[in-house]
């Protein structure tokens, strides 16, 4: 039983390593998404400004 425990814990260690990797990937994706959002937000703002100008002219 004790051996089984040891074996099992090895497996868990592996799983944790994998989870940490996935977490790192997810983190960088989130950063990317945030950058994208900022970019989109800027583009929308530009459109709003231009549209306002068009309307006034």
């Amino acid at each position, binding site marked *: *039983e*004790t051996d089984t*425990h040891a074996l*099992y*814990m090895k497996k*868990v260690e592996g*799983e*944790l390593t994998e*989870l940490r990797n*996935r*977490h790192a990937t*997810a983190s960088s*994706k*989130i950063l990317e*998404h945030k950058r*994208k*959002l900022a970019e*989109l937000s800027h*583009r*929308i703002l*530009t*459109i709003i400004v*231009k*549209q306002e100008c*068009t309307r006034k002219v």
Partner: protein
Amino acid sequence: WDKLLISNNHKIIELNDAVKKVKNDQQVLDQELEFIATQHKELEESLAPLEKEFVG
């Protein structure tokens, strides 16, 4: 020793559940990330014609 063994046993079962849950949550998180990527793409696509019209 028996007590320790039994306690280890319990803890391992708990650990197993916790790991399963974390794995599951990570799966959900990954799916949400995919979803966000799609949403951003859609938003970008609807921006394109507006930019063409107003920004030139």
